[in-house]
């Protein structure tokens, strides 16, 4: 085995190393699902308990921006998937290009999210003493916005962490660290990125769309 082999000393083969990395990522995602699961449970219970307050509150969210962000994020999943494929084929430049595209799309998502948050701030929709809500049941509407900020905030935090990891990954890819035998990091980060994407695919309908039609 050559000096700068990418096979770690405690593995017997590239196949074993690859299988371990991928199983490890799936186990990590399982714990992430349980982590978000607590919030989804809270959302479900409170939505069922205060349907009116939640429906009117979700009307305050901007469907247009939410839809735009959904499309942006799905696009970033596509570029991420392409980056994984490039790495598997040993195409260094393609990998770097698609990773950068993924980071760009992720950043667009976060900027739009920032504008949405600012908008909520201007309309006094931050739960607390300054909360103002014109719809019925303003007390329980606060609960909706607590959940809105907790869920999207935690999701955004995962995006920010993801962007940091992607930046590191891009630098590694540019140095040509990934080979068709070992590009486990690219695959692992890819899985993570798709997972964060899927969380949003659930958040968007639950927070923006669900129950809205009752109001018109």
């Amino acid at each position, binding site marked *: 085995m050559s000096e700068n082999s990418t096979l770690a000393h*405690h593995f017997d083969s590239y196949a074993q190393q690859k299988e371990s990395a991928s199983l*490890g990522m799936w186990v990590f995602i399982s714990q992430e699902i349980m*982590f978000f699961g607590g919030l989804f*449970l809270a959302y479900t*219970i409170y939505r069922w308990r205060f349907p009116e307050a939640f429906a009117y509150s979700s009307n305050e969210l901007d469907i247009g921006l939410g839809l735009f962000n959904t499309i942006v994020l799905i696009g970033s999943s596509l570029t991420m998937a392409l980056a994984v494929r490039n790495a598997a084929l040993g195409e260094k430049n393609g990998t770097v290009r698609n990773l950068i595209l993924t980071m760009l799309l992720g950043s667009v998502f976060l900027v739009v999210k920032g504008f949405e948050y600012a908008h909520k701030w201007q309309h006094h929709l931050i739960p607390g003493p300054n909360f103002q809500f014109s719809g019925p049941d303003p007390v329980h509407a606060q609960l909706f916005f607590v959940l809105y900020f907790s869920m999207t905030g935690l999701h955004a935090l995962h995006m920010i962490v993801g962007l940091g990891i992607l930046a590191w990954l891009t630098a590694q890819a540019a140095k040509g660290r990934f080979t068709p035998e070992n590009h486990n990091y690219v695959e692992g980060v890819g899985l993570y990125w798709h997972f964060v994407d899927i969380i949003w695919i659930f958040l968007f309908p639950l927070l923006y769309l669900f129950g809205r039609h009752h109001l018109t």
Partner: protein
Amino acid sequence: MTSQHESAPALPEKHYLSGAWSPQDWLLTKDHKRIGILYLVGISIFFALGGLMAVLIRMELATPSGDLMPADVYNRVFTMHGVLMVFFFLIPSIPAVLGNFLLPIMIGAKDLAFPKINLLSWYIYMIGGAMTFYGLLVGGIDTGWTFYTPLSSGYATGPVLTVAVGVFIAGFSSILTGLNFIVTIHRMRAPGLTWFRLPLFVWGHYATSIIQILGTPVVAITILLVGAERLFHIGVFDPKIGGDPILFQHLFWFYSHPAVYIMILPSMGVVSEIIAAFSRKKVFGYKFVAFASIGIAVLGFLVWGHHMFTSGQSLYAGAVFSFITMLVAVPSAIKVFNWTATLYKGAIAWDTPLLYALGFIGLFTIGGLTGVMLGTLGFDLHVHDTYFVVAHFHYVMVGGAILGFLGGLHYWWPKITGKLYNEFWSKISAGIIFIGFNLTFFPQFILGYLGMPRRYHSYPEEFQVLNILSSAGASILGIGFVIPVIYLLASLANKRYAGNNPWGAVGLEWQIPSPPPTENFETPPVVTDEPYTYPQPDEKEAPVGV
């Protein structure tokens, strides 16, 4: 198999301890064995701190009036006792120390699948521990280890946020350990080591890891939400905006009931190894014991409501939780019966590890059976939040988890250090711990049954005799915990080397030198047999039936 004849065991020339000893060789090590030692240092510190809190509790309760400390201080002392012992000692104790050290060796691997993540988990653990310790230094918190809202989110004083974040962080070290174990057990087994050739220690850790992966993140998000609520004065458990503090209890116990099995399942794995080694027999009903671990892990996720019988959950929910709680007794009893059957007609060697294993069986059985009593809806309403509950979970956690940990530490100490400890003192201290433990906690069953509530610093005069018995027992127990520290540390200076296999046990870990070389195996092992194949005196079949 590498069985050279060993006349006078000598220390191997090169092993994992003989390498470089500068700080970075330890603090940046990726060797699972050295990381296990780092964890041993960490949990010992937190055990001592938690034990100090226990001393203060038992001193206060020696007299009926609250004379040693005001109620407010007492609240902080028992809270810190619980937080330190549960999150920083019991949960990491066996997996992170013995599991870390032994699991790769037992499956014939050079290391865990992710050595860097293993080291990271130790740092995460120590950072969480340091934050909690800081919280203790600046006065401690009075929420109880359960962090119930709205007390914790709005009313408790002290550095609740710091300690909550400390516990939150430590949770991720537990998650990472579980992740590493699951991947290692799936992907790193030696050729020929099929699932049903795995030692039961490994099965126990596999079941534990499942709980760590699926349970811990739930309590993590819950504690995060409590922290946010405390920080922003508004949150999802806040009744002022329609939030439900009972939801907190559901989420908290969804983890914290299975957390008991994070403590007990590895301990059961240790006991299985010890019983087989010191009765020189195959574990009776190996597959049943293995699947019982998985059964306990799965059922453990479905019983959390038994902590909430009095919190206003529906009677039907209570009845269902009560029923499933009793089901957990089935796999637990399978283990106890199978260990007993393993001992039956075995060639028993009364060494210290076996004493601990037998102690475990006795105390865990009492802890488990009183658990069934508490799981019974009607009885629980009577003794809810009394010392009966306190006695029950200490029988499981101290009598179960700690005796298992000590038994394992004594069993594998010669492997870990290459040295033999003082046999006389180790047996004496095992006896002292057993007596001290029962004297401490058995009276608490009676106290609870008579109605003494937990978490108060004063109590009516009529409870004093039993409380004095309990405090006296705690002193004895304390001595029992100090003696092993002395003779185990003294053994390090011992010139008597243990040799590769002082117990004559089977298992991959006993076929390599003590202490093991850094890479564990010189040549990768190939497994051709079931575990625990001890040569029988008459090669007839093992006894069937009684």
